[in-house]
């Protein structure tokens, strides 16, 4: 592989992310922070009923507010070709046809958008909009509804249920998880500007600028290239930015209507309503083993909620089919439509939900078997082959991860019988679980611009939602060219740059790394072409043998400075562009990232409070390009796991269809004090088949399984098996 001995990085201070200074000084611009001349503000008004039809909307009061420019409603909006009629709306697959319907599907559904000169005026006027509805009966009760909906097979059944009906060890239980909400710290925002009749500029919070671009090009029936989407800094996503949401569309309509740029930033309560969430779920697992602890079979049924206007399938049983050897396996699922807004993928998506149930069930089985859960898992892992398709795993080091994690947490100190270790009023316990995620890769493009002074700018449309994409691009370009990091700049998050897939599902780095490597090679080849005019040896130089430095190009000790290269060839900017994507390796191998989660918890016997003493996460993410950023991402995912296990839930009032306490005072996720210093380790072995850098994604596996590890530790501490997330103190005390 093409790793060179690189130039040392002179004055690389401070050592950190490429965009570090922009982030710590506040100079980096997030979507809502661009100054656009003549821009006005939009504020959305939500419906006050959960189901029905709008009879009338009263705008008189709102219009009296000084500064109000216009108010969009379903009766007053610009013409959108992609929504021209019912058939077109269906075809668009956009989800909620905002302002193109009088139907109400959920409480809080936008029914109007007030556009005013200032945010204060728009906010105030929005509070004065009211509507009359014909009210239909709304159903928001997942617990009551799911039993009425039958599950059907997801994936092929392996073996049969009957064949393991007589095994000696069987556990069967139900697991539930409440709605959880992504809540990235930056609220979704858009500034929409029509720069001409058919040219649109969007500053938008999302995880994939090309996706946004394509969606709106279709809806407005204009060429994709006419839409520029800028998402240079993205304040977190966790899945909420993977699709295009109605509020962005509303902002574009508003800008069209008032012929001025419009800015909309959702309020925090709207963040719970309009940009997806992890749907509430119910799962049932039956799992059996022989007396040696060899798994005999599993039957996994999963149901989760969705909206009435759009179906969403989270793929909860996917993980059940990939981690262990089950010769008998049946997975079934169903979705349950409710009068709530549409859910979407949230970090680790369905796999995270599924892993909670499966990994708890295995833990339950281990106590029945009186076998150590670590041993039990090691014995049953499908470590060589992907059990779903029989392909060899390109790399799968989950076994090593489990062993390493066990050492790091001091697993040997765990008491095999629950409730044995105490410290005053605290009960102490150990738990573990694993997570796995199919390591994907998409086709991505990148380009490099090189200046006469030898500095390069590596560019791609891909966003950086906080994972360190930009820094990784810099590192990779440094590794594959030899140019020092100080001389490598990065530009990303703009749809005018070479197209790249959305950043999600842990595919960002895997996809972009190949593109950056290919572009580095294209650059070398291009420079060698110029060099060959000065020196013949460059004629058949291969990219892998060419070395770049801060001052020039060399091949077999033939050095030519950039200055002379530029001079002789009369160059200005040298540009190279390339793209790269998965190939036939996908036919040969299966790919996965994995994680082993361990934790030690203490549970207060009088208050039910749970404190995570220690949390360990060992990840196989292939070759780690930037250890600091990778560890940060994994420990952050662990904090997400703590939230999922202990506090995150968005309750719904089943009488009125409202969300209860939908703000950050009502919805708790892990704060600093809720999370211990998470200990992260990596296997750090390259997967040579996946892409040129050998790195696999790790954003998802950091959370997949971590809630189960915590629940299992709580059982080990207290002997109480809690199968309903989040595990709040009241549930522990009542168990």
């Amino acid at each position: 592989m093409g790793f060179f001995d690189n130039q040392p990085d002179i004055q690389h201070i401070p050592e950190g992310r490429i965009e570090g200074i922009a982030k710590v000084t506040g100079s980096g611009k997030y979507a809502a922070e661009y100054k656009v001349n003549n821009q006005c503000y939009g504020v959305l008004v939500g419906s006050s009923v959960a189901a029905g039809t709008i009879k009338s909307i009263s705008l008189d009061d709102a219009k009296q507010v000084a500064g109000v420019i216009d108010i969009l409603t379903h009766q007053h909006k610009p013409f959108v070709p992609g929504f021209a009629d019912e058939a077109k709306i269906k075809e668009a697959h956009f989800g909620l046809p905002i302002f193109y319907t009088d139907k109400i599907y959920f409480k809080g559904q936008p029914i109007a958008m007030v556009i005013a000169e200032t945010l204060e005026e728009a906010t105030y006027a929005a509070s004065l909009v009211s509507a009359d509805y014909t009210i239909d009966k709304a159903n928001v009760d997942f617990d009551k509804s799911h039993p009425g909906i039958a599950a059907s097979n997801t994936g092929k059944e392996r073996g049969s249920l009957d064949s393991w009906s007589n095994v000696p060890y069987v556990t069967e239980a139900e697991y539930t998880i409440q709605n959880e909400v992504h809540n990235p710290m930056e609220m979704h925002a858009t500034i929409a500007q029509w720069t001409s009749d058919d040219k649109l500029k969007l500053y938008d919070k999302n995880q994939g600028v090309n996706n946004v671009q394509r969606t709106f090009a279709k809806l407005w029936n204009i060429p994709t290239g006419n839409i520029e989407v800028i998402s240079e800094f993205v304040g977190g996503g966790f899945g909420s930015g993977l699709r295009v949401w109605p509020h962005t569309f509303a902002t574009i309509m508003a800008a069209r209507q008032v012929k001025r740029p419009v800015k909309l930033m959702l309020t925090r309560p709207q963040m719970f309503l309009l940009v997806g969430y992890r749907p509430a779920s119910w799962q049932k697992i039956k799992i059996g083993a022989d007396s040696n602890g060899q798994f005999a079979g599993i039957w996994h049924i999963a149901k989760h909620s969705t909206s009435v206007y759009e179906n969403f399938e989270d793929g909860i049983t996917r993980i059940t089919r990939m981690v262990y050897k089950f010769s008998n396996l049946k997975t079934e699922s169903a979705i349950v439509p409710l009068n709530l807004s549409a859910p979407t993928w949230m970090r680790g998506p369905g796999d995270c939900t599924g892993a909670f149930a499966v990994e708890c069930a295995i833990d339950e089985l281990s106590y029945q078997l009186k076998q150590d859960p670590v041993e039990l898992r090691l014995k049953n892992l499908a470590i060589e082959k992907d059990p779903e398709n029989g392909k060899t795993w390109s790399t799968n080091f989950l076994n090593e991860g489990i062993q390493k994690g066990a050492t790091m947490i001091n697993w040997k100190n765990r008491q095999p019988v629950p409730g044995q270790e105490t410290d005053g009023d605290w009960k102490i316990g150990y738990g573990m679980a694993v997570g796995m995620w199919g390591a994907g890769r998409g086709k991505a493009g990148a380009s490099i611009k090189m200046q006469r002074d030898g500095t390069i700018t590596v560019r791609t449309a891909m966003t950086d939602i906080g994972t360190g994409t930009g820094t990784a691009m810099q590192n990779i370009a440094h590794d594959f060219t030899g140019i020092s990091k100080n001389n490598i700049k990065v530009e990303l998050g703009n749809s005018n740059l070479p197209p790249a897939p959305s950043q999600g599902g842990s595919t960002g780095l895997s996809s972009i790394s190949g593109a950056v490597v290919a572009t580095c090679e294209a650059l070398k080849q291009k420079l060698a072409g110029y060099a060959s005019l000065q020196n013949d040896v460059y004629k058949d130089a291969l990219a892998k043998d060419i070395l770049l430095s801060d001052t020039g190009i060399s091949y077999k000790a033939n050095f030519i400075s950039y200055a002379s290269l530029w001079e002789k060839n009369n160059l200005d900017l040298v540009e190279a562009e390339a793209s790269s994507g998965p190939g036939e390796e996908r036919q040969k191998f299966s790919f996965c990232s994995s994680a082993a989660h361990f934790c030690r918890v203490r549970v207060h016997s009088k208050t039910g409070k749970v404190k995570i003493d220690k949390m360990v996460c060992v990840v196989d993410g292939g070759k780690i390009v930037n250890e600091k950023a990778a560890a940060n991402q994994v420990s952050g995912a662990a904090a997400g796991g703590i939230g999922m296990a202990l506090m995150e839930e968005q309750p719904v009032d089943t009488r009125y269809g409202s969300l209860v306490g939908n703000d950050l005072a009502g919805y708790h996720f892990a704060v600093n004090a809720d999370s211990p210093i998470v200990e992260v380790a990596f296997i750090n072995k390259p997967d040579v088949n996946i892409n040129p850098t050998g790195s696999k994604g790790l954003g998802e596996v950091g959370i997949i399984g971590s809630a189960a590890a915590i629940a299992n530790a709580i059982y080990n501490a207290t002997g109480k098996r809690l199968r309903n997330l989040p595990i709040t103190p009241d549930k522990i005390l009542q168990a």
Partner: protein
Amino acid sequence: MEKQTYSRRFFLTTSSLLATFAFIPESVKAFYSNVKKLVIRPKEELRFLVTINKKKYRINADSRTTLLDLVREQLQLTGTKKGCDHGQCGACTVHVDGQRVLSCLTLAAMVQDKNVTTIEGLADGDKLHPMQQAFIECDGFQCGYCTPGQIMSAVACVNEGHTGSVEEIKEFMSGNLCRCGAYNGIVESIQKVAR
């Protein structure tokens, strides 16, 4: 102009009063909807002086404008972030006369004649504040959206002497939410500066 203090509570009570109309019989409602019309007050503009990051600003602001919206929307000081607008997340933390303050819970008019420091004013020219430097070195962020607020609180955490242990730092910093969960690096940054 006479010095006045406006509290956000005033607006909250007014609006929650309006909300209670929903539960009042129609006839009474009709009567009060006239009153409500009177309650809709036109916007009041306030003029005052404030010093932000050592620079004097002559402000002309809507009486409802928060300090957060003042800096972000009017002065283009967008380093201070809006994460909730309700005092629940810490993203908007700034210093007013050296004290940490949630700018979303502070009406702009309340900082009349005061000294405000935002994240943009923390560095000394090109020289980063040690806490900013530490956040970069310890990777105390991911998406960076909570970061300005974290840093402003972190500076206060050190100044106010709450760095005795990891637990103490964590407790003190728990008003600043980070959904990316960059807590390891945030604690490490503070320890580094406190040392």
